[in-house]
């Protein structure tokens, strides 16, 4: 007995489109804020993880690739990756990197540094991305944030994709910083 599909079961299309738009015009990266703000608002206001449970398009994408397309080995994740220490550690690391990105954005915004038209993958590899930049009506800082934010989104998709292949389809959910954070908010509210 399969449950009937709801409108939100198609949000994977949004996630996929988002990733593709980053190759067309980097400014679309700003749309990714939806994936940051919505789960936080839901957890703060409603005290649940409805975002993870129902609306997360990335989770649906991994579930589809690993499940229906059979790309996942469906093995258990190593124990250390499922531990609280790793999950909280990754959350802290992710946040630290996020603030470094905000700082770089500020430097460009304040005119102390030129715009870097690159996407940084896995916080290490700078990939030229000028072909997705067609200028901005606003400050260069707006574009710098887009490059930085897209770097985060693409990096986390790559990490999630690799763990999808190696372990269970939605392995990303175990160490997803947004998931860990909303769970902590729910715990505090309980």
């Amino acid at each position, binding site marked *: 007995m399969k449950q009937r599909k709801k409108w939100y079961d198609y949000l994977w299309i949004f996630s996929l489109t988002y990733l593709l738009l980053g190759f067309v015009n980097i400014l679309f990266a700003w749309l990714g804020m939806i994936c940051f703000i919505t789960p936080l608002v839901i957890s703060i206001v409603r005290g649940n*993880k*409805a975002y993870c449970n129902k609306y997360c398009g990335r989770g649906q994408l991994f579930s589809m690739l690993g499940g229906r397309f059979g790309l996942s080995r469906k093995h258990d994740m190593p124990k250390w990756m499922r531990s609280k220490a790793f999950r909280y550690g990754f959350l802290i690391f992710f946040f630290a990197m996020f603030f470094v990105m905000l700082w770089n954005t500020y430097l460009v915004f304040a005119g102390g540094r030129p715009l870097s038209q690159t996407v940084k993958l896995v916080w290490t590899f700078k990939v030229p991305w000028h072909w997705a930049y067609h200028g901005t009506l606003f400050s260069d800082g707006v574009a710098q944030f887009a490059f930085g934010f897209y770097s985060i989104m693409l990096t986390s998709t790559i990490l999630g994709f690799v763990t999808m292949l190696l372990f269970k389809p939605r392995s990303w959910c175990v160490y997803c910083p947004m998931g860990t954070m909303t769970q902590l908010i729910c715990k505090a509210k309980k």
Partner: protein
Amino acid sequence: MKRKAIVNTDLCVACGCCVRVCPKSAISVPDGVFAVVDSALCVGCGKCAKECPASVIEIGGGAE
């Protein structure tokens, strides 16, 4: 004798993957902290345990 899903609530990440696959709607994540099994509805099919990315669900029980 009834086997059913048992969640390790301490390590559950509350992602809700189990909720999606449960054919009996017997599992939910009510407060966003961990999954809860309605033992009256659970038939112990094990779909949730197989899906769980954190591998925190076991099918157990038996003697009642």
